[in-house]
């Protein structure tokens, strides 16, 4: 199961990606989390220590070559994971796309190509792959995520966020992705939930989850703690577990464990 998480900047993509990844890993799945944002933040949300996050090497362009039938990884995907992933709490393997370090470094086309090829080779029913996308629609527009099984668009209940989801959905529709769902985030009231629900009905989107607003998530973020390791954020974690279940990623066996941050 390969799941891409998209949405407007600030909608909560990274928090939801990290929580899904850790929940699934706790329930015994093999989990790979890909930070596909040129401005990466997933390591912190997963609870990777800063020292270990600093050792995360971006995937080099040389990992991809043209081969019969199109682009592909030049090395077995298991070797790529061994070499380029860092271990996050609960056993999640984190991989980073890489970002431009300086102005005028050129385009990110090769970074997109590597992520795309990696996703292609990571497909396996037992493994969960979570791709935390950047707000920019480039991954959708360039088809970087054509090899995922589902795209989840995170929507906040306000106009611009929903408009972004609508436009992103139009881009996803061009890709051979089987399932596209919306998850409502930062829902403060029944009116908020209704706004997203009506939006989904109007455009024929499946609303697969509703995550309530929770001040504690903000508090956890400010303390650089993953939501899943912050007791007060339990309502968010529960909502994400339900939503993951809707997508066929059963997190039912998830048991609270001692936070692994800082070890």
């Amino acid at each position, binding site marked *: 199961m390969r799941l891409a998480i998209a949405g*407007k*900047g*600030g*909608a909560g993509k*990274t928090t939801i990606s990290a929580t899904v990844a850790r929940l699934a890993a706790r329930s015994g799945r093999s989990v790979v989390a890909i930070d596909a*944002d*040129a*401005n990466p*933040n997933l390591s*912190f949300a997963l609870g990777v220590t800063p020292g270990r996050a600093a050792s995360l090497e971006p995937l080099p362009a040389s990992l991809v070559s043209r081969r019969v039938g199109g682009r592909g990884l030049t090395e077995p995907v298991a070797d790529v994971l061994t070499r380029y992933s860092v271990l996050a709490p609960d056993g999640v393997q984190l991989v980073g796309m890489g*970002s*431009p*370090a*300086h*102005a*005028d*470094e050129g*385009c*990110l086309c090769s970074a997109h190509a590597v992520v795309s090829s990696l996703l292609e080779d990571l497909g396996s029913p037992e493994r969960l792959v979570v791709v935390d996308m*950047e*707000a*920019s*629609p*480039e991954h959708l*527009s*360039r*088809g970087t995520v054509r090899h995922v099984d589902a795209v989840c668009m995170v929507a906040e*209940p*306000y*106009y*611009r966020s929903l*408009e*972004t989801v609508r*436009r*992103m959905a*139009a*881009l996803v529709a*061009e890709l051979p992705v089987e399932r596209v769902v919306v998850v409502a985030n930062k829902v403060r009231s029944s009116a*908020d939930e209704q*706004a997203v629900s009506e939006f989904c009905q109007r455009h024929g989107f499946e609303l697969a989850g509703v995550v309530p607003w929770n001040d504690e998530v*903000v508090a956890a*973020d*400010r303390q*650089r703690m993953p939501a899943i390791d912050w007791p007060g954020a339990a309502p968010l974690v529960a909502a994400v577990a339900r939503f993951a279940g809707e997508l066929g990623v059963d997190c039912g066996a998830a048991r609270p464990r001692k936070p692994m941050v800082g070890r």
Partner: protein
Amino acid sequence: MRVAFVGKGGAGKSVIAGTFCRLLARADDRPVVAIDSDPMPGLAHSLGVPSTDIPLPPDIAEQVGADPDTRWVLRDGLTAADAVERYAAGGPDGVRLLQFGKLRGHVRALGPSQRAFRVLIDALEGTDWHLVGDLPGGTRQPFFGWASFADIVIVVAEATPSSMLAARRLARLAPSGRLVAVANKVVDAGDAERLGRFSALPVVGSVPADPEVQAAERAGVALLDAAPSSPAVEAVGSLLESIGAEAR
């Protein structure tokens, strides 16, 4: 003045930029051009412009000169002022909104309109008009030179780790002019100080967390129309004054 707003997605760039444009237009007679380089919808709503998808006709730009010294300029006979009058959307307070259109398919499809857009912005540098840019969230566009028209690049950030981290990454930008930060959604006095310390940027403004902003966003209405005397609008007014003093 020539400014560009950058920062992490969701930091509040468009709300601040849109309000900034309109307050600037009210305070000064020279035209204000709001430059929206986000291929996703954004700035129009914060300005109060109804239409959100106004692509620039690619044929306003043409290639001149012989190989290898060809370059793109505005089509013969077309001035920057003409192009803006013709192709920018008119907004409240006389603000002109310039866009290259919104993404519908492969990003390549936007290429010609984006080229026309950059040619027009270059041409606007020869005017005395105000240019206010609102870049997409993250580090991608700023690092690829999309804020190069600005004398002052303003990094908008919340005092959260991810937002401040984006600010610190953006601090590596080397603009021709100045790079400053604005603290947004500020909840306590320490926020601006934390942002300054973490990003190593001078913090020239501080906009409070304001429920009026949230309400305006939910209603899809420009903040300045929804809550003209809200604390957030006042703070953007102060930001305009301090940037204006610097730009002069």
